């Protein structure tokens, strides 16, 4: 059965995580003899820092396992963030936060459905279609607010909700809830089995009578949906409806999925591995930040560490290419 992860598929990302944790412990500053990295406050910071990209990575994993890719996720985050801020700040009725979140997330899910529909019915490559969605969604976000950013959460009406939803105690559990939903979806539902089957061999899945088009569309709808959720959280965390938010976040999401063992060709992968991948990225950024390393140097080191992490988790795998 395509998509079923082997024991090695589960262990390799964990071995990579263990390696990165050891390196993080060794490289962490020790102001009082204890590694700063392991302090609870720092760990919770790190989890918050990876939450937005982690949520995108969950959606990305579902799409990649299904044999696709979604380059629009960063732009959808920006669109959701901007729409939420705009509706929330301009509509003063008591239901405006719910309406703003529903509209923002719904439109992102709708764009996911549109991408999936174009991919399946016009038989275009996912890379091209989601690239177009990436450009279009960013343009829509910028047009909607006339290139401006919307400050939210500064008045008595919007502040309580934005401050509540933007705190670590909400953002991190929201990330974990999305990850759990993605895990259940992929591992325990018929849809999840179909996604893996379609990603493993679309032709075989079609010949077996699986609803390939519907499965793909729903996978992109899911990625759009979670990008919308990430956008609302991003807005609350930064107090800004920012149309330039999430630039290149989709690449970090892909990196998290790949580090976690998801095969880019589709058919294999899972949310636990993606969580590990997101953690690896977050730990690397966090430790470099704790060491006060220049951001440009951080990028270079991260690039090397991503390659090393993927190589490490491929060690021992029968599938080396």
């Amino acid at each position: 059965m395509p998509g079923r992860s082997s024991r090695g598929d589960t262990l390799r990302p964990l071995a990579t995580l263990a390696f990165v944790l050891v390196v993080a412990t060794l490289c962490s500053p020790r102001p009082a003899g204890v590694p700063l990295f392991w302090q609870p406050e720092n760990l919770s910071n790190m989890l918050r820092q990876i939450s937005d990209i982690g949520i995108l990575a969950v959606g990305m994993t579902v799409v990649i396992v299904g044999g696709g890719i979604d380059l629009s996720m960063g732009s959808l985050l920006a669109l959701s963030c901007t729409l939420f801020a705009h509706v929330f700040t301009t509509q003063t009725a008591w239901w405006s936060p719910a309406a703003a979140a529903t509209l923002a997330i719904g439109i992102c899910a709708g764009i996911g459905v549109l991408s999936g529909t174009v991919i399946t019915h016009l038989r275009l490559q996912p890379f091209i279609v989601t690239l177009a969605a990436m450009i279009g969604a960013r343009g829509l976000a910028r047009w909607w607010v006339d290139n401006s950013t919307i400050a939210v959460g500064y008045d008595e009406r919007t502040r309580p909700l934005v401050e509540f939803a933007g705190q670590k105690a909400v953002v991190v559990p929201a990330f974990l809830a999305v990850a759990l939903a993605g895990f259940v979806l992929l591992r325990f539902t018929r849809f999840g089995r179909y996604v893996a089957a379609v990603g493993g061999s679309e032709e075989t899945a079609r010949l077996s009578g699986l609803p390939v088009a519907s499965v793909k569309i729903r996978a992109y709808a899911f990625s759009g949906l979670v990008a919308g959720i990430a956008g609302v959280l991003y807005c609350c965390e930064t107090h800004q409806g920012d149309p330039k938010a999430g630039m290149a976040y989709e690449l970090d999401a892909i990196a998290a999925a790949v580090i976690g063992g998801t095969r880019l060709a589709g058919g294999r992968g899972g949310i636990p591995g993606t969580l590990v991948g997101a953690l690896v990225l977050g730990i690397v950024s966090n430790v470099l930040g704790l060491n006060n390393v220049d951001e440009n140097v951080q990028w270079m080191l991260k690039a090397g560490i991503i390659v090393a992490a993927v190589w490490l988790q491929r060690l021992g795998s029968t599938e080396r290419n």
Partner: protein
Amino acid sequence: MKKQLFVLMAATAMMFAGCGTETPDTAGSPTDAAGGKPIRLAYVTNGIDPFWTIAAAGVRAGAKDLGVECEVLMPPKGLVDQKRMIEGVLSNGVDGIAISPIDAANQVEFINQAAALTNVITQDSDAPGSNRLCFIGMDNYKAGRQAGVLVKEVLPEGGKVMIFVGRLEQLNAQQRRQGVIDELLDRPVQSGTDVRFDLAAAELVNARYEIVGTRTDNFDYAKAKSNAEDAIATFGDLRCMVGLFAYNVPNCLAAVKEAGKTGTIKIVSFDEADDTLQGIIDGHVHGTVSQQPYQYGYQSVRVLTALAKGDKSVIPEGGFIEVESVVVRKDNVEDFFAKLKILRAE
């Protein structure tokens, strides 16, 4: 296949049908020096930010008062995007451009190319050595020193200070940072045109203050917050955060609040983000140095309009039109905030 082709052609036809250009009503508007066509200007920012929203309000007010057209362009992706936008307005023909250069040192040649085609001025951040006609902005080095004074006011006993900024390639960011550093280290005032910059890795410490680092985020708000969180974790005895760009302090403030260090870590800011001003009202931010971006927009339109009419008397000797910065503290914040809301609504 034929059906798909038809749909594609129909969609393309509809797109072109919708692309008709809208001709603005320019009857009675001032014309350029040749007296032929209405004056058209462009105002190019260095990114998208609430700061530029206020500047855009000044641009609109200036354009309305003077009866000219001025397009505001906000490049979302940095230097390359800014260059593309400027090339676009030059291709369309424009009577003047006000630019906030992203990378002053490396944009001189490009600004010179633009200056050969139209009137070019810089605003907010300068590109010294280029052929721009003048620079409209505050003295960023002086403003940096004002921020340093705010740090000294709130932290007279001294301590560790961390600086946060979007990117350090911009001259205004370099000058502000240097102003803060020089003030805290009690160095003599440097000349505004020939400021010597300390390297990021330099040891910056005297008997009272230690500047433990300068963190950049490339305009990524989430990264800005992460930087603040990491700084709080790394330096348990951090006493003050200085944000050089508008969005830095709101993110610093959020990180300080979440770490439960409100009051312990003092905050000093630049510009006038809502959260910064609310933070001053609440007592969580000591003060901010405001650049008056509205005036950047308004004055840019005024100067470019005069230049388009052939009036070069608007360029002062030295080519620097200073917009005085305003220091906002608890005593004047409410009045400042109220006026700002009126400007934004315009």
